[in-house]
């Protein structure tokens, strides 16, 4: 292994990410602090924890998102904390690891800056080693932060250490997985996509495993992470599994990197067409061409996730039959059948994910501008409006299809298991209900692009806030106005509650207005490269 210069490169990575790293850390640790505080105040005693378990129980719908419920036989506040937070936090930490590792490996290589770096006294493996070391340190820092903000609320030390370590090590496992992805594919976008897809796939597979077939969970880092059974008779060896998994992937990534040329992936480069087809000759067609690959990936992803969520819905019904008391409790809360409440939550969560797609997709305008592609087209007789709207049109159309597909997948699976074919149309429509909120996300991204092109990262901060509010508002007892801040907080919880047109129309108008304002801002400003 050739790692000369790794230390210097680590300093470079730290310098480049001097704002990014603290922001990720603060976001993740802050989320944990709020969660620990809230669990402490709501379920701070064993008795309260028992109430929690008796209401939440071994509910397959919740196991999908929360884990298998280790320690539910002897509930403590720690058991509740793990059930409510550990998977989400591991997922977010995994996302951080995927993005950061890609940013400093394949994306950097694609920009050809790595050529310059590697021409200096720098070993072949040094860039990857430096990236993994810094991301590893970030995961350690997140784990330490998680432990530090949890302990003051009186959670046992051993369990807290196990929980924090499982989160950090799960993040590290996906950092290493992304390092492997960066060897296989040739562009930063593809390797970030592959890394995130692995992350989400692992999350879904673990969900199916926890509901249906426990062995499946152990195929994923999430299964090993939660398998440490924090606060429920820790099984420390599960952490060893994560360490081994990570080490094996790191070794694989470094081994693969010696077997390819710098700047190329392992997948061979095939020659393409010598002439452009009719699609590629227009800004709109070009925008679709540039985005269609990952739109297709998202389409498959949300449809499959919908199928998975929908297929579990019937188990919710079965469980209600076994435990009418629970049904009463949940129906009171949702004002609808348990299955509908669950389906509405599932479909809206997928809508939220599509909101993330919309942000990334609408921000393509900014990345195309900063790398200089926009300049090529705008120097041709293409107006700012025509160029800028092309990517947004693709974003909005693709997002509409994606929310419909999410609902369709959920509906198909639920219709199959419940024998009610009408669920297909009903849930597809429910999926579409998220559309206007997703449009608002595309609008925020476009407005930032038009008016504050150098601060477009802020869109992600807003999205992260909305996601936290959406996923944790009930559990964290967040103030109501915070929920109203998020566009997703205004989407009617269909099919659990009746349709309301007004919020949807208002959201759609707001979203369209933000898109228009953003493009108007872009028309009036200097093109900003880099």
């Amino acid at each position, binding site marked *: 292994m050739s790692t000369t210069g790794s230390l210097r490169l680590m300093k470079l990575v730290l310098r480049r990410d001097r704002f990014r790293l603290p922001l990720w850390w603060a976001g993740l640790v802050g989320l944990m602090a709020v969660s620990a505080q809230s669990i402490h105040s709501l379920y701070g005693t064993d008795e309260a924890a028992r109430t929690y378990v008796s209401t939440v129980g071994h509910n397959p719908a919740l196991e999908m998102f929360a884990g298998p419920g280790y320690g539910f036989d002897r509930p403590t506040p720690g058991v509740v904390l793990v059930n409510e937070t550990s998977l989400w936090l591991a997922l977010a930490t995994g996302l951080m690891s995927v993005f950061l590792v890609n940013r400093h490996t394949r994306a950097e290589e*694609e920009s050809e800056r790595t050529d310059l770096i590697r021409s200096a006294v720098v070993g072949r493996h040094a860039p990857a080693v430096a990236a993994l070391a810094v991301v590893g340190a970030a995961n350690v820092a997140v784990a330490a932060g998680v432990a530090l903000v949890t302990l003051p609320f009186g959670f046992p030390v051993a369990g807290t250490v196990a929980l924090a370590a499982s989160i950090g090590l799960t993040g590290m496992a996906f950092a290493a997985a992304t390092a492997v992805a960066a060897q296989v594919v040739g562009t930063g976008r593809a390797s970030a996509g592959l890394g995130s897809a692995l992350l989400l796939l692992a999350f879904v597979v673990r969900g199916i495993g926890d509901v249906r077939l426990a062995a499946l969970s152990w195929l994923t880092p999430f299964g090993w992470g939660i398998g440490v059974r924090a606060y429920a008779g820790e099984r420390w060896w599960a952490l060893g599994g994560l360490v081994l998994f990570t080490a094996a992937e790191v070794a694989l990534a470094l081994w693969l990197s010696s077997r390819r040329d710098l700047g190329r992936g392992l997948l061979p480069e095939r020659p393409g*067409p010598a*002439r452009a087809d009719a699609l590629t000759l*227009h800004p709109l067609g*070009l925008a679709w061409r*540039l985005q269609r690959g990952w739109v297709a990936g998202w389409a498959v992803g949300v449809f499959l996730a919908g199928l998975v969520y929908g297929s579990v819905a019937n188990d919710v019904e079965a469980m209600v039959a076994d435990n009418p008391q629970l049904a009463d409790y949940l129906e009171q809360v949702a004002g609808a059948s348990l299955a509908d409440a669950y389906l509405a939550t599932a479909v809206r969560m997928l809508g939220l994910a599509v909101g993330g797609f919309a942000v990334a997709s609408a921000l393509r305008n900014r990345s195309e501008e900063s790398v200089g592609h926009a300049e*090529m*087209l705008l120097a041709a007789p293409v*107006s700012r409006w025509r160029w800028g709207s092309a990517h947004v049109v693709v974003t909005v159309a693709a997002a509409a299809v994606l929310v419909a597909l999410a609902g369709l997948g959920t509906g198909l699976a639920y219709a199959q298991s419940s024998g009610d074919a009408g669920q297909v149309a009903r849930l597809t429509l429910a999926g579409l209900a998220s559309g206007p909120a997703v449009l608002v996300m595309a609008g925020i991204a476009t407005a930032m692009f038009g008016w504050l092109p150098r601060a477009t990262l802020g869109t992600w901060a807003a999205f992260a806030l909305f996601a936290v509010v959406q996923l944790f508002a009930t559990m964290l007892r967040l103030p109501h106005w915070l929920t109203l801040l998020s566009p997703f907080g205004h989407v009617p919880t269909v099919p659990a509650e009746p349709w309301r047109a007004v919020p949807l129309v208002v959201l759609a108008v707001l979203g369209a207005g933000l898109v228009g304002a953003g493009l108007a801002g872009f028309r009036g400003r200097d093109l900003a490269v880099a």
Partner: protein
Amino acid sequence: MSTVIECRTLTKHFGATKALDGLDLEVGEGEIHGFLGPNGAGKTVTIRILLGLIRPDGGSAALFGADPWSDAVTLHRRLAYVPGDTNLWPNLTGGEIIDLLGHLRGGLDPARRTELIERFDLDPRKKARAYSKGNRQKVALVAALASDAPLLMLDEPTAGLDPLMEAVFQDTVLDTVAEGRTVLLSSHVLAEVERLCHRVTIIRKGRTVETGSLAEMRLVSRTTITAELAGDPAGLGGLPGVYDLRTDGHHVTFEADHEALSAVAARLGELGLRTLQSSPPTLEELFLRHYGDELEHGQVDHPAVVPRRNGAGS
């Protein structure tokens, strides 16, 4: 000859940085205009203003008599642009990008496209991410040269091209001008500028320091004279318009003002000429004169280009 590009006292700031500080530029129809200046002098900023990509803070810019910002789309039907740092869509092939840019500019001549791809020895089936810098540059060049736009704006178009391709580029540009097109050529390859350009504008720190035809510029500059004399060269130094006299026995080298040449030649004749060589200033000498203080301050140790003398005679 009508004016195609006209900039008057352009200014542009980026934060505290003054990128343009009263720049003037005038390009007439049918000419190849060299646009020269050290790195960071403001060449690319000027071109981006002319393309309507950024807006000047002060002064005026006109392209075909129209405002490059508000009439950008209309104006762009009449021009083709090659950026200095060509960034292409990594997953599109060179051929696709040529077609895309050509189509947006209103279509390109397929025969000409084929011919240029052959002349530049470009593989149009390669994905852009697999191209070298020179090949990326060729994609943008073929797209621009295959269009029939009356104005070509080329920002250091040959950076990264090998000498063979550089020659192909020069021939192609001369062909396009024979068709009556106008070219604005920003370049550091002075030999290329000397061969191609009718007129040049030299800028420095965002300001125009010299503009005119190369012939005009030479007139206001000194000629280097080297001679071997039968008589004693002492006394030459006393002539008006003679500078930097160096003598080595009967050999002399000095520089002379254009106006002093007749008197100097007469005096040399009186002293008994054995050999005589006179070199008009090269573009490089003209160019380097404008970074004089940088050279004196030792910021530039060596000229970045190899001097090429032309117009030598005896």
